[in-house]
């Protein structure tokens, strides 16, 4: 599993954004056209389709590397319609998996066990066929190892951290966000909501991003401070 430092992820995201700006022949402004970036720069396509979910599980989207496809779970369409920021972050998240962790060169070669359709695992559709394949894989040690690898890969917290950082850096580019928050009082929630709307991201994604960049501190009681230093001063010296 490859490990990425935050700065590496920021640099890669900045490079992708600059490639998109070149193709569009104009500087980027919020909201970042994330669909165009996926399609025009990363060569990915989108498909909206129903993705089965296990009990107590929510699958918003999935990546099908062999088909270079981001699959958005159609069963959450209503949720996405009310929260476009969630849809955009889900796309950014899947793009992060592709850009950071998929060995794109290896996709051209035959896959393990000649399985060239990873949808069996990422999409969990066609339950009968999937069960058959699972049983077959579980019947020999290499197959079991393959399944273990897939499971551990999906749950890896480092990968989740990295792809979420990537999504945030794409949707809320550092320079654009700094410029935006520099002109307002960012210790007021109403102003943050306005910026979230402008970047078409959720308020949660925005506050996490601002805190990552050291531009905000949210106290436990949801009081906002300009940065951790101000927060510390306020808390110590009320």
């Amino acid at each position: 599993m490859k490990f990425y430092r935050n700065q590496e992820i920021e640099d890669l995201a900045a490079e992708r954004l600059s490639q998109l700006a070149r193709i569009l022949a104009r500087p980027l402004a919020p909201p970042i056209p994330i669909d165009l970036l996926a399609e025009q720069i990363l060569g990915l396509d989108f498909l909206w389709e129903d993705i089965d979910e296990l009990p107590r599980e929510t699958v918003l989207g999935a990546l099908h590397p062999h088909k270079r496809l981001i699959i958005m779970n159609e069963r959450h369409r209503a949720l996405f319609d009310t929260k476009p920021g969630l849809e955009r972050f889900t796309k950014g998240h899947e793009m992060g998996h592709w850009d950071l962790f998929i060995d794109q060169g290896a996709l051209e070669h035959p896959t393990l066990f000649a399985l060239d359709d990873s949808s069996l695992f990422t999409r969990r559709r066609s339950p009968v066929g999937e069960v058959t394949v699972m049983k077959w894989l579980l019947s020999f040690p290499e197959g079991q190892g393959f399944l273990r690898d897939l499971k551990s890969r999906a749950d890896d917290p480092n990968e989740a951290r990295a792809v979420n950082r990537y999504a945030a850096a794409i949707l809320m580019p550092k320079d654009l966000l700094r410029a935006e928050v520099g002109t307002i009082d960012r210790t007021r929630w109403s102003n943050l909501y306005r910026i979230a709307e402008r970047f078409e991201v959720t308020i949660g994604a925005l506050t996490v991003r601002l805190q990552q960049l050291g531009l905000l501190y949210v106290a436990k009681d949801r009081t906002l401070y300009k940065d951790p230093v101000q927060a510390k001063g306020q808390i110590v010296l009320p």
Partner: protein
Amino acid sequence: MENSILIQFAYFLVLTFNSILALIVDMATNQTFGQRIRELRKAKNLTQRELAERVAARLKEEDRRGFDVTYLSKIENDKMPPPSTIAIMQLAKELDAHSDELLALAGKAPMDLGQTLKESEAARLFYRSAQELNLDEDDWKTMKALMEYLMQRRTKE
């Protein structure tokens, strides 16, 4: 009289030839309707949602229902058959594409061709005969040359 029917056939054949040409192009590139739509959309820097919304806005209420981003994504990925002839014509307009090409890729006859077939018994007979003859590319070229000759003669008259 005989000459007039031939000239009508000539026009009809031009339309047919265009559609068949598109099919030949498709066979040569192996491109599906969905793939072509995606290619045209990307060339215009449009997202699936933008294109779906623009086409839906052009359609009448009864044709618009269900024409959205999820539907378009399925069409592009060949998970759904091509939409109605009306919707394809609006897609062509939004994408600055030739509707005959898209209709041919969708396996649908252009509306004017359908109208010609509907109105003319002779055209229907001619179309059937052409199909039964299993014309190859050289045959079609010969037919096209004949039509051009007839059209030139008609212009001179």
